[in-house]
């Protein structure tokens, strides 16, 4: 159980490449934090720094109140699950799980008990005498989890643990990991580039890009109030739609305008957007924010042409041309539109996002998590 603090953490390699510039992050005890970002964003480096596999070149790292900067990995109370599972090919499943305990000098009886417990919990008891190469991918994943959890570590680290699994298994494992976090009552740091995983698992998500934290917040906060277009784009499937245009004020209402299109923005935005008429902005509309059942109302309707209809089982994706831009929406499958048809779609302007057109920063951002 530990609180993890990174203060102005920097990581610069001998060749001059800076993986992290100055990163500060405070992970609470027993929290489940997901580091999310594209590859090369520094999330794995951050994880390795916490694990002790790499060392900070500037700044500090604390577990609770202890400085950990120079403590090598094998002397930190952390466990880690790897994307490739990294099971020891020459050891049985039992020995794989027991190895960390042996190395830390636990008594034999306790090792036996802990390994059995972990195996029972992960339902891999019948596999204990097998070698890793005799296991399926899902089984290996469980062994890797088992190896980490028997340690009962203060910090539980996971580096894209589900990426090598097929889709169905991945969903099931997510639930198990969530369950694991509940029962283990320890700090989890989880690295992924899969936004769905992040949204499912995290207490808090840390979105990273080029070694810089973009936003830290609960999944809802990150999803509903992205700080910039990068964060907004990274979450959501299909991705958020953007329309470039201007702010306009009329009759005490603030509108987004583009050509013939004018959307009235909700009242609660007024405070932040007032007095900025004429400012070029990007409107962000998530794919699911169309209301196909309500009657189109002025200021909340998009008029356009259906350019494509892509059924995806339960839903369908609608390609929709508005004012020369192509947007994608997710709608129910009972909505029968045809390609080339001109329709009016009612959108949920209450959840629209407004970003500065050039910087991509959210104009609605209030600094809250």
């Amino acid at each position, binding site marked *: 159980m530990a609180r993890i603090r990174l203060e102005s953490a920097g990581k610069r390699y*001998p060749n001059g490449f800076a993986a992290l510039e100055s990163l500060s992050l405070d992970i609470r005890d027993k929290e489940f934090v997901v580091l999310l970002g594209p590859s090369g964003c520094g999330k794995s480096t951050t994880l390795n720094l916490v694990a*002790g596999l790499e060392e900070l070149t500037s700044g500090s790292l604390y577990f609770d109140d202890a400085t950990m900067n120079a403590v090598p*990995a094998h002397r930190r109370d952390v466990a*880690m699950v790897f994307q*490739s599972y*990294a099971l020891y090919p020459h050891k049985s499943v039992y020995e794989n799980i027991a*190895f960390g305990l042996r190395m830390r000098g636990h008594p034999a009886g306790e090792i036996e008990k802990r390994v059995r417990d972990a195996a029972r919990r992960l339902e891999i008891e019948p596999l204990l005498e097998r070698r890793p190469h005799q296991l399926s991918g899902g089984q290996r994943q469980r062994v890797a989890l088992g*190896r980490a959890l028997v*340690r009962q570590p203060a910090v539980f680290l996971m580096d894209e643990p589900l990426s090598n699994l097929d889709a169905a298994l991945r969903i099931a494992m997510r639930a198990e990991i969530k369950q694991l976090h509940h029962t283990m009552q320890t700090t989890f740091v989880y690295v992924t580039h899969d936004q769905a995983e992040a949204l499912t698992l995290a207490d808090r998500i840390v979105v990273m890009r080029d070694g810089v934290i973009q936003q830290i917040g609960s999944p809802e906060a990150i999803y509903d109030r992205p700080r910039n277009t990068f964060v907004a784009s990274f979450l959501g499937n299909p991705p958020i739609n953007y329309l470039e245009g201007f702010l306009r004020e009329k009759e005490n209402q603030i509108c987004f305008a583009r050509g013939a299109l004018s959307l009235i923005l909700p009242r609660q935005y007024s405070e932040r957007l007032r007095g900025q008429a004429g400012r070029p902005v990007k409107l962000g509309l998530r794919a699911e924010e169309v209301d196909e059942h309500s009657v189109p109302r002025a200021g909340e309707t998009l008029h356009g042409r259906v350019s494509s209809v892509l059924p995806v089982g339960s839903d369908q994706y609608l390609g929709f041309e508005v004012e020369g831009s192509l947007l994608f929406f997710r709608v129910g499958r009972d909505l029968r539109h045809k390609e080339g048809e001109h329709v009016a779609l009612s959108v949920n302007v209450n959840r629209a996002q407004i970003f500065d057109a050039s910087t991509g920063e959210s104009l609605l951002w209030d600094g809250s998590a």
Partner: protein
Amino acid sequence: MKRIFLFCASTVFLVYVLAPVAWLVSSSVQQEAEITSRPPHWIPREPTLENFEAIFAAKEKQVTYETRRQGDPATGGYIPSTARNLVPAMWNSLIVAVAVVILNLVVSVPAAYAMAKIRFVGRSASIYFMLTTRVIPDIALVVPFFFFIHKLGLLDHLGSLVITYLAITVPFGVFILVGYFESLPDELDKAARIDGCSRLQTLLRVYLPLAVPSLVAVVLFTFLTSWNEFLLALMFTQTPASQTMPIIVAAFTSDFTISFSFINAAGVLAVIPPVILAVVFERYIVSGLTAGAVKG
């Protein structure tokens, strides 16, 4: 059609490899009169093991006027007085080879692990350094080695060979092992470190068991190099107490009066141990070399 072609090719290949050895073996069991026949008898008509008997039966004993063997060594069936040195020389070779193998592993395994798995400052420099030393021809090392060995007082001692053989075997061992370690996943290294292994423990408990094929290959290479080495042994050993097998065998070829078949018998004995080793561990040589070699 293809089967026939493969069969023919295999036969040509077998003959190319085995015919010279077969001739050596055949000559080693021929008597002196037979071995000098023209054209040669490919298969001995009256095979004899007297050469081998002479090598193994020869024992160091008190020689007096009464027990001396009369006549030139020649009259004793062309078997030289130095025949008895061959078996001790093979022991010397074995001792040297085993010592070099152990020291080589102690030196090159940690180094190879560090080069393959630790990103430290000076990593590429140390790799280049290691490779460069491999390029130096061993004959260029002879003179400085001579003074060095002399200073250590190890001339005519097996120790001189152990030291100098390290120079020629360590770079190769490291080279093979670096390649093999690199081919093993980095995440195993991380997993072991997280599981509580120090660097040395990671090496010993995780990588070493996994590197068995290349370890066997390195052991074999080192063993055979030491067992077979000639030039340095020729320079640094002078008496049967420290001379190794190749030196004694080479000496036979220049002894006063010696039979052709005896020389061949000595050759056969010199060939047997390394060939057995190589054939038994054939599987490991190929798999152990592969990872290291292709990467280069």
